[in-house]
C-alpha cells in the first residue's frame, strides 16, 4: 500500500496541474532556514510521516521568519510522532485562508466503483466531517466506464452548500483529482483536505493525500515512495520475491508462515490473545508456494526468534510442495531454533510421507522439527502431533511452549468462546469418524 508522504503527493499534484502552496522539503533545520529565506514569507513547517492527524500530534508549526522556522524544525526533525520517526519536513508559505473545503476520491467496496466526496467543511478528518456535518458531505458514485463528468461534481457541490461563485472551480478541481490522480495513478484513495480558498481568491491544496494500489505499481515504475526506502532487509527481500511479509514486531519470538491469509490471521489472533509475541505475518500461499524454503531463510534473520511455525492448509497451494521446500531449506540452513510444520489439504498424503521420512533425518542431525497434519494421529513418527480437530490449535500451543509461554485462550469480551459447541464438535467427530470408509479417518477416530 504505497502511501505517499505529503510532499511526494504534492509533487505529483503539481505535475498534474493542481495548485499547491509554494514550498520545499527539507531534512535539516539549516535547510529549512534557507528555504524560508528564499520564500520570504511566514511559513508552516510540517512533519512528513505516513499518517493523518499530524497537527493534533504537534507535528505542524507556524513560523514568521527563517530563525523561528529553523527552531521549529529542530523540534520536529529526528523526533517521533504517532510512532513514526521524522526524517523530513515540508516548508510551505502560510496561506491566508478564507474558507476550507474537503474533496476526495475513494474506492467504494460496497458499490464496487469509485466515489467522489465533497464537503463544504474541511480541515478535519473525513470521519469527523461524516459524524458532525453529514448534511455538508456529498458522496457520488462514479461509473468506472463513463468516468466522472464535471456536472456530477457540480451537483454534489451545490448539494453541500458550496457558494455559487466557487462551484465551477471546485468542481473542476474534483474532476482533475479523479482523472489526473485517482485514475491515472491507480490510487486506492486520494484527498485534498483542506482545499483552501485564500483571501486573494485562489483554490489551493493545503494538504494532499495519495495512496497507490500495490498491485498496480508495475504501471508506475517512476514512483519510488519514500516509505519503501525504510523497509528492512527482510521486507525488501520479500518484496523482491513477491510474497507477503509484514513485520509486526522486529523483536518478536514467533514467526508464522502460512499458505493463506485466513489461517495466518487466525494464528495471529490466537498467539496475540495468549500473550505471545508474533514477529511477522507471512503468506506464501497461492502463487508463491514454491518459496517456502526461501521464506524460512528470511525469518531466521529475525534477532529474537525462538520458534518458527509453518501452518499450511492447502488448496491452491500444495502441501507436498511446501513440505519438500521447507525440508530442503532446513537441511541446508540447519536452524538452531525449533520448527513446527503443519501440512493439510491438497497434496496432504504426499506431505505426510515426506514429513515421516524427513523428520527422522532431522532427529539424527540434532534439529528440532515437529509436524502434524489433519489426518495424522501422532503415531506416524516420533515427532508427529495429532491433527484432527486440534490441527490448528496444537501447533500454536507448541510454538508458544517453545517460547516459555503457557497457551491460554483469551478471546475478546465481545466474542466469548463457546465450550459447549467445541464439546459437541469433538463428540460428533468421535461418533462419525469410525463410520467412515477411509482408513485414515477411522484411525484418527481413536485419538479424537
Amino acid at each position, binding site marked *: 500500500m504505497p502511501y505517499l508522504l505529503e510532499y511526494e503527493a504534492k509533487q505529483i499534484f503539481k505535475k498534474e496541474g493542481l495548485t499547491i502552496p509554494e514550498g520545499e522539503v527539507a531534512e535539516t533545520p539549516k535547510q529549512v532556514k534557507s528555504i524560508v529565506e528564499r520564500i520570504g514569507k511566514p511559513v508552516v513547517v510540517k512533519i512528513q510521516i505516513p499518517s493523518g492527524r499530524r497537527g493534533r500530534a504537534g507535528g505542524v508549526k507556524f513560523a514568521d521568519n527563517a530563525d523561528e522556522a529553523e527552531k521549529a524544525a529542530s523540534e520536529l526533525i529526528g523526533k517521533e510522532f504517532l510512532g513514526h520517526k521524522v526524517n523530513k519536513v515540508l516548508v510551505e508559505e502560510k496561506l491566508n485562508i478564507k474558507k476550507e473545503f474537503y474533496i476526495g476520491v475513494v474506492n467504494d467496496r460496497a458499490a464496487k466503483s469509485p466515489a467522489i466526496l465533497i464537503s463544504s467543511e474541511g480541515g478535519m478528518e473525513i470521519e469527523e466531517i461524516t459524524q458532525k456535518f453529514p448534511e455538508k458531505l456529498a458522496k457520488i458514485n462514479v461509473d*468506472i466506464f463513463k468516468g466522472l463528468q464535471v456536472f456530477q461534481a457540480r451537483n454534489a457541490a451545490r448539494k453541500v452548500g458550496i457558494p455559487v461563485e466557487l462551484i465551477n472551480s471546485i468542481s473542476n478541481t474534483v474532476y482533475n483529482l479523479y482523472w489526473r490522480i485517482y485514475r491515472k495513478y491507480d490510487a486506492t484513495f486520494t484527498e485534498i483536505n483542506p482545499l483552501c480558498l485564500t483571501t486573494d481568491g485562489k483554490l489551493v491544496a493545503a494538504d494532499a493525500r495519495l495512496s497507490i494500489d500495490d498491485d498496480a505499481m508495475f504501471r508506475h515504475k517512476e514512483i519510488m515512495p519514500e516509505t519503501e526506502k525504510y523497509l528492512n532487509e527482510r521486507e525488501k527481500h520479500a518484496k523482491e520475491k513477491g510474497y507477503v511479509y*509484514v513485520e509486526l514486531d522486529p523483536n518478536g519470538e514467533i514467526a508464522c508462515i502460512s499458505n493463506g491469509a485466513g489461517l495466518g490471521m487466525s494464528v495471529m489472533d490466537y498467539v496475540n490473545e495468549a500473550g505471545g509475541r508474533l514477529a511477522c505475518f507471512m503468506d506464501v500461499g497461492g502463487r508463491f508456494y514454491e518459496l517456502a524454503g526461501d521464506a524460512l531463510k528470511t525469518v531466521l534473520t529475525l534477532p529474537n526468534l525462538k520458534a518458527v511455525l509453518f501452518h499450511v492448509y492447502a488448496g491452491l497451494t500444495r502441501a507436498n510442495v511446501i513440505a519438500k521446500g521447507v525440508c530442503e531449506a532446513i537441511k541446508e540452513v540447519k536452524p538452531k531454533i525449533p520448527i513446527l510444520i503443519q501440512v493439510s489439504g*491438497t497434496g496432504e498424503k504426499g506431505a505426510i510421507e515426506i514429513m515421516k521420512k524427513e523428520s527422522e533425518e532431522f532427529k539424527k542431525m540434532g534439529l528440532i522439527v515437529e509436524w502434524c497434519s489433519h489426518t495424522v494421529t501422532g503415531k506416524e513418527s516420533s515427532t508427529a502431533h495429532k491433527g484432527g480437530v486440534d490441527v490448528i490449535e496444537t501447533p500454536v500451543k507448541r510454538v508458544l511452549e517453545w517460547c516459555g509461554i503457557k497457551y491460554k485462550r483469551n478471546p475478546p469480551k465481545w466474542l466469548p468462546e463457546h465450550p459447549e459447541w467445541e464439546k459437541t464438535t469433538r463428540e*460428533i467427530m468421535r461418533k462419525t469418524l469410525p463410520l467412515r470408509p477411509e482408513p485414515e479417518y477411522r484411525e484418527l477416530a481413536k485419538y479424537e
Partner: protein
Amino acid sequence: MAVFATEKTIALIQGITGKEGAFRTKRMLEYGTKIVAGVTPGKGGQEVHGIPVYDSVEEAVKAHPELNTAVQFVPARLAKDASFEVIEAGIKNLLIIAEGIPFQDTMEIVALGKEKGVTIVGPNTSGVISPPICELGACSQSAFHGPGKIGVASTTGSVQWYISRLISLGGWGVSTMMQIGGDPIRGTDFPEALLMYEKDPQTEAIVMIGEIGGDAEIRAADLIERGEVKKPVIAYIYARTAPPGKRLGHAGAIIERGGGVEAKVKALQKAGAIVITYPWEIIGAIKELGIEIIPELFKTPIKESKVEE
C-alpha cells in the same frame, strides 16, 4: 442444485497450457467437472489432457456453444483483457483465480460483467466446489463431502478448508463452497453469495468466513436483518487482533476507516446470525440449528483426484 458449480456446468479453461492451468485441469477432470475446451492465445490446435486448445474464447464458443463457465488461470496483469474476452464472448459465469489484479481493473471487469449479466466469482480465489459434482479452480477437494446441506462462502481458502472438512466429516456435507476471495473489489461479495444460497433448495444453512477490511459482512448482516436471507447463518470472522493500517496478505484485509472485526461481529449477532469464536466450534453451532445429518455420507468415500504432481 448447488450454486455456480453445478451438474449443468460446462467449462472452458483460460490459460490451460500454463503449468498451473494444466495441473488443475487434470484434477478437475478427475473430479468429474465437465471441461470441453481450453484457451491460450497462440497455442490453438494443441491438446491438454485430451482437451482441445483454442486461440480465442470466441473460437472455443463457436466450437462448443454449450459452454457456460470460464475458469481463468491467467496472470494478474492480463486478467482484465482475459475477463473482457470471456464476457464479450457471451459466457455467463466467470471464475477469476489471479491474485494481484489492480483493483481499478477489477472494477472495470465487474462493471462489464454486471452490464452483460455475467456472474463473476473472484478475483483472488482458489475456486468453487459442489461435492461430488463439480470442482472449479483449485480447491482442496479432500475437505468436501456431498451432496450436502451447508453452503460455505469465504474470503479465504486455508482456515475454510478446515471448517469445511469438519462440516463434511460431521455428516452434513457441503452444498457448495464459494471462495469469494480476499480482494477489496469482488465480483461476488457476501451479500450476493448469501442470496445465491438463499435461493438454492439444496442449501439449508450458510457458513460465512470473513475478515477485516471493508463492510461486506455488515451488508450481509443487513440482508439477514431485513429478512431477505432467512436461512440460518453461522459466521467466523478472523483477524480480531489486527494492527490498523497494515495489509495482511489479502489486498482487502486492511483496517482503514472502519473494517474492524468487532463491528462486523456485533452487526451479525444483532441480525440473529451465530458467530463462532474458534473454527472448531463449527459443528456445535450447526447442531444447535437442528439440521439433520445425511447418513449416506458415512457410506461413501470422500472424492479426491489422485493427481498430486
